[in-house]
């Protein structure tokens, strides 16, 4: 990565530059206020009592003894919820606190506010709950046919996608059943926030989240309050990756603050965090691929079953992605895909980086390798042969009108010659510090995978972002409710503003529901396009206002003026004025930005449901000790379609970081659920890649083909790195071991059979 600019130049950072993060200095100084760092005078601490059972009837709930403890200010249950009893991102079906039944282990049952977290813990322990345990529904395969565990039924959504000829057979057919385990987002900053009761009867909530306005809608509904009386401000977010798209402690905090009339802070422990947010849907997938003798895909049949857990969350959107992108970025004339996501008593699942597409990529890429083997064609060649191009149709019948450099990402990734220096240190072998692997036994594997996903919200959703640009005295202030979760939108907002207004100083106002309309969710790789688009539009309007003002005041033509380096200049050099002087009287624009409309899927899963698509390929090299079942991911190479590169340094961060989450899913990350109970709710037992686990990620190519209709031609880049990375790593392990390995994460016992071990 020697071509990346890493100096901190003093000149202004515009579009295309590796601008530094505006929050970089407070973050390295330790002064950046994360939501868990908040403090308020007379603040109380909140806590949550959770169900130890995945399915049970609540026979008795007695908080009397907890209330008697010195230092306890209030204990609240479902009876105290002032408004709607349930909430949800797409569909309100999740209780604020359980009433008669609990449907997953960890479901909130009661909440407490007290003077000190230790008193909170004692109070929670003093609450008496009598449960009548029920047999939990834990097998998603049976969910459709057994008794409903929720009034809304056991099927969240079913999609029967039928495209083209439903009967046609290929000369060659390959079949497989694949599984993906439940992954946790494992952001580092725990769920946390501070609620402050307002003197006006409203409430102020400072919280880490991905979508302030969707939170406000749900919180207000559960509090029985008007939306304008619930004021939510983004507090520093320690990562999100989808897990903060749903509510967690939001309503609880507000209820405690309003009941006690005191500010209340709550911070989840890591164990509680594993129970307190949704996970990536575990998947079971069956595929049958048909191809002709030359390797051209003829038809794909698939059934994708996702376990949605106890409540809906974003399951509907996840299964739509899983169905629409089930067969990967290939030209496939005929398809029959059944996608179904069901309710169980397992932990609720929802958004995680690349949702729906991550699971199916593992399946369709394994199938492409099987097809290559069956036809004796090179795996790269068969992918190139079938690669989607602009003008091709998706399985939904939608024609891709934007850029689709699928062949380019595959080819550049496959051809890249790594510069990584192999280490001869035994520490680099599988097993690492254990130094247990024998170099003689190591088997190396290498494989490629490619994946894709939609950008932004699909299926006719009214997807928009809002922004305000205020220019005064040469200083631009941008107000946008886009949740900065670490991805670097704040950097980009400054770059866009500098680019358009030619000013150096760009202030970012806090993201809050009070000052600006919704920015939509920081998810679905959408904020660069959507909130980037809103900031661009707001700045363009202010720019035009300024040029018109100057044209009127100084008798120059608007078309002759440019804004650059803090000045407004006429192209012929006759006129110039400093922007700070020209904007002593402020200018302001308040805008909403929408992407091109999308449409719902019809009963055959057909329709122009998506706006745009982004593609990436990964090539993985792994070392395996087949006797010990140990795997070391040696290297990853990636190429990605970005539309246009807006900030090279931040883009690399997304490509490397997303790949790390893909490596994790491939070889180590799984929320282990037994009879509905999470068995590894800690960083001791749920492992995410450390610096020793993570290989170098070499970027073979960043493909820049500007996307029509996208602000600056740029596509979102956050999710593609997490899609094909998992598939590439597991394929490389298959190469090294000659095992089928139909499930991720690949476990030691998948490589070494138990019989061999004993």
């Amino acid at each position, binding site marked *: *990565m020697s071509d*990346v600019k*890493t*100096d*901190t130049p003093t000149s202004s950072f515009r579009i295309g530059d*590796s601008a*530094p*993060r505006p*929050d*970089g*200095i407070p*973050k*390295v*100084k*330790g*002064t950046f*206020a*994360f939501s*868990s*760092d908040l*403090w308020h005078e007379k603040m109380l601490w909140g806590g949550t009592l959770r169900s130890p059972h995945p399915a049970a009837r609540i026979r008795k709930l007695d908080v009397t003894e907890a209330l008697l403890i010195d230092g306890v200010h209030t204990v609240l249950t479902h009876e105290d919820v002032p408004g709607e009893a349930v909430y949800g991102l797409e569909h309100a079906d999740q209780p604020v606190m359980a009433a008669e039944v609990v449907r997953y282990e960890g479901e909130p049952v009661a909440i407490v506010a007290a003077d*000190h977290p*230790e008193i909170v813990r004692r109070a929670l322990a003093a609450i008496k709950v009598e449960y009548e345990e029920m047999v939990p529904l834990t097998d998603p395969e049976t969910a459709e046919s057994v008794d409903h565990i929720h009034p809304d039924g056991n099927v969240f959504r079913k999609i029967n996608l039928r495209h083209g000829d439903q009967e046609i057979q290929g000369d060659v057919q390959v079949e497989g059943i694949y599984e993906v385990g439940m992954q946790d*987002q*494992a*952001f*580092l*900053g*725990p769920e946390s926030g501070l609620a402050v009761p307002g003197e006006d009867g409203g409430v102020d909530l400072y919280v880490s989240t991905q979508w302030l306005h969707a939170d406000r809608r749900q919180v207000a509904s559960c509090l029985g309050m008007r939306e304008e009386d619930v004021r939510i401000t983004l507090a*520093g977010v*320690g*990562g*999100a990756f989808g897990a903060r798209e749903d509510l967690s402690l939001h309503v609880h905090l507000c209820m405690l603050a309003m009941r006690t009339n005191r500010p209340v802070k709550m911070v989840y422990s*890591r164990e509680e965090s594993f129970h307190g947010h949704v996970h990536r849907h575990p998947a079971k997938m069956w595929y049958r691929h048909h191809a002709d003798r030359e390797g051209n895909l003829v038809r794909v049949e698939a059934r994708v079953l996702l376990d949605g857990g106890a409540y809906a969350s974003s399951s509907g959107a996840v299964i739509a992605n899983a169905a629409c992108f089930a067969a990967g970025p290939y030209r496939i004339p005929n398809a029959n895909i059944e996608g179904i996501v069901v309710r169980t008593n397992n932990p609720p699942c929802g958004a995680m980086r690349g949702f729906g597409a991550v699971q199916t990529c593992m399946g369709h890429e394994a199938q492409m390798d099987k097809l290559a083997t069956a036809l004796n064609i090179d795996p790269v060649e068969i992918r190139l042969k079938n690669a989607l191009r602009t003008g091709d149709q998706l399985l939904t019948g939608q024609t891709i009108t934007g850029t689709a450099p699928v062949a380019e990402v595959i080819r550049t990734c496959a051809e890249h010659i790594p510069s990584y220096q192999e280490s001869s*240190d035994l*520490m680099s072998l599988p097993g690492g*510090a254990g130094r247990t692997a024998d170099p003689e036994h190591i088997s190396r594997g290498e494989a490629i995978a490619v994946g894709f996903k939609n950008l932004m919200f699909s299926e006719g959703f009214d997807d928009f972002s809002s922004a305000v640009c205020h220019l005064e005295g040469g200083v631009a202030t941008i107000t946008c409710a886009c949740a900065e*979760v*670490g*991805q*670097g939108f704040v950097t980009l907002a400054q770059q866009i503003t500098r680019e358009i207004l030619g000013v150096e100083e760009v202030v970012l106002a806090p993201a809050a529901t009070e000052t600006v309309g919704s920015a939509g969710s920081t998810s679905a790789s959408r904020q660069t396009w959507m909130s980037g688009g809103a900031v661009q539009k707001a700045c363009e309007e202010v720019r035009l206002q300024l040029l018109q003002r100057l044209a009127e005041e100084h008798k120059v033509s608007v078309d002759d003026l440019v804004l650059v380096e803090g000045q407004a200049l006429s192209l012929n050099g006759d006129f110039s004025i400093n922007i700070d002087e020209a904007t002593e009287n402020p200018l302001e624009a308040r805008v909403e930005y929408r992407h091109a409309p999308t449409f719902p899927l019809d009963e055959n899963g057909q329709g122009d449901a998506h706006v745009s698509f982004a593609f990436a390929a990964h090539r993985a090299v792994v070392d395996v000790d087949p006797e010990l079942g140990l795997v070391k991911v040696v290297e990853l190479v990636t190429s990605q379609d970005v539309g246009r590169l807006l900030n090279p*340094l*931040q883009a*690399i*961060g997304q490509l*490397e*970081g*997303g*790949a*790390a*989450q893909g490596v994790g899913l491939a070889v180590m990350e799984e929320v282990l659920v037994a009879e509905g109970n999470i068995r590894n709710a*800690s*960083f*001791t037992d749920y492992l*995410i890649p*450390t*610096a*020793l686990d*993570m290989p*170098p990620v070499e970027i073979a190519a960043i493909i820049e083909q500007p996307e029509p209709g996208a602000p600056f031609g740029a596509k979102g880049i956050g999710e593609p790195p997490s899609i094909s990375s998992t598939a590439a790593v597991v394929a490389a392990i298959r190469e090294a071991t000659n095992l089928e390995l139909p499930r991720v994460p690949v476990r030691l016992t998948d490589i070494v059979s138990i019989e061999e071990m004993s």
Partner: protein
Amino acid sequence: MSNDFYTLNVNGEDHQVADSWAGESLLWVLRERLGFPGAKNACEEGECGSCSVRIGEEVVCSCLVLAGSAIEQEITTIEGLSAEGELSDVQQAFIDAGAVQCGFCTPGLLVTIDHLLEENESPDDLTVREAISGNLCRCTGYGRILEAVQIAAASRRGGKRE
């Protein structure tokens, strides 16, 4: 609750800790009683390194240290790595290399890396990986962090990359 107080030396200054509970961790006391929120609370079980601080010459997970056991020792937190308005070479390198995303792991990593470079001014890739393997980062995949360490190490050696 105790009416006694004890004294902790944090970043070169003595701080009195009053009315504390016996079981409070050093992390808790730093963050909630003494106003040093830089050390973070990502797991509070000694696995993630986000709470890393220095006690004397040792980097520890402050969530696993009883606050009362850290008396009469020099505690250094992220807030003590550079003076107000200044950045240490490692802090600057983190910004320049793009090693910061959400920033939650950043303080712990900086404390760990500052200590590493004090002991070894030319750590190779594997040495750095091992040194920071107790500090989890979920955003970056570590690539830019490793780059930042090499930038900082080079600047300490007078600007030469090895």
